[in-house]
């Protein structure tokens, strides 16, 4: 029978150093969480972006619609979308099976103006805010556009629905789309 535990020869030792480290790290966690909420760091990209110039040809060849992602370097929600959707390996692979991804970065604030190609794409997709996502059929005839970002999974679902809609020319509710 094992000896009853007494104070003498006690096996208990409270880990003071570990408690201090845990408390300090918890404080740092909260502080950094608040900081990075406002200054989102960009994670590595997992999507193979296709240059806008060749995207229509790639789309015609593969039969997939084009996904235009309109963003800007200063846009916080764009960074969140980058981290939750385009940096997530699983979601990036799913996205690439659905669409031809094209990134269109607005440089108007930094450089005073955008290239003609960026301007024309923004105009064609009626971009008024960032981020904006546009799923466009390979022939450019049908498109679905949305602005803002909620979360990665919801955005991926929207892209999947929109890819199907522009492919069929009919929304899930039966309404024909242009």
């Amino acid at each position, binding site marked *: *029978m*094992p*000896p*009853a*535990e007494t104070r003498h020869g006690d*096996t*208990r*030792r*409270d*880990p003071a150093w*570990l*408690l201090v*480290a*845990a408390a300090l*790290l*918890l404080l*740092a*966690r909260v502080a*950094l*969480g608040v*900081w*990075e909420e406002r200054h989102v*760091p*960009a*994670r*590595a*990209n*997992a999507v193979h972006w296709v240059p806008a110039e060749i995207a229509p040809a790639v789309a015609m060849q593969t039969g997939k619609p084009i996904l235009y992602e309109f963003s800007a370097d200063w846009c916080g929600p764009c960074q969140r979308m980058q981290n939750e959707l385009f*940096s997530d*390996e*699983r979601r990036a692979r799913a996205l690439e099976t659905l669409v031809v991804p094209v990134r269109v970065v607005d440089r108007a604030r930094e450089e005073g103006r955008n290239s003609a190609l960026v301007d024309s794409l923004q105009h064609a997709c009626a971009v008024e805010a960032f981020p904006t996502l546009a799923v466009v059929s390979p022939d450019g005839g049908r498109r679905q556009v949305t602005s803002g970002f*909620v*979360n990665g999974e*919801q955005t991926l679902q929207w892209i999947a629905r929109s890819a199907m809609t522009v492919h069929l020319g009919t929304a899930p509710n039966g309404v024909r789309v242009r």
Partner: protein
Amino acid sequence: MSPTLMLAFLRQRLTSPMRLVLLVIVFLSSVGMNTVTGSFAGAEGNALFYAIVLAAGAIGQDISSGVLQLMFARPVTRPCYVFSRWFAAGAGGGALLLVQMVLACGFLLARGLRPDFAELLPVALAGIVLAFTASAVIVMLSSLASGLGDMALYFVATLVLTGSGQVARWKGWSVVERLADELGHVLAPQLHLAWLAGRGAPSWFELVSVLSTLTLSLAVAMLVVNRKELSYAAG
């Protein structure tokens, strides 16, 4: 830390048929996946799985089988016991990931394909850190529930947090959503170290969160085990 305790723990884990089957299935399918795709992206998640399988019931099974009373009859302090359990499961999980990656690299080279070595280091490092973190979380849960109750706690907590996160998102309760998200990351920690290879910017929050989860879980496990009444009359 006691090497004897660690080795005995790992030997016991690796002779459990159920654990062995789970580890072998995931290990072989992951090696196959890495070899076929030529990519190690997301492989760090395997270390999490290995560590969870190894750590499940780490303390709880000793409590329910009555081994813990005998264990502390030896000159072993309780924190040393918890620390050894945690370290053994974490090291085992990390080691399995490394073997998986080395094997997959070997197969890729045999096929005449060159693995992306720049991708390997961040994945391996993240995997090892995640293995030790997941091991700490499971050891903490194991200190709270006997037998394999830690796994029940783990799955119930995961379900509750996922559900409440979805409801909060739907209702627009951003604070609840964030809380569910943070607690979810305690159960399934994430760490991206691609920035070590010059891809993307580091997220110090993510790194500190993982270390905070690790230290908090270990501290709670040690405090709980320290306060357990282990005399036979206690049950």
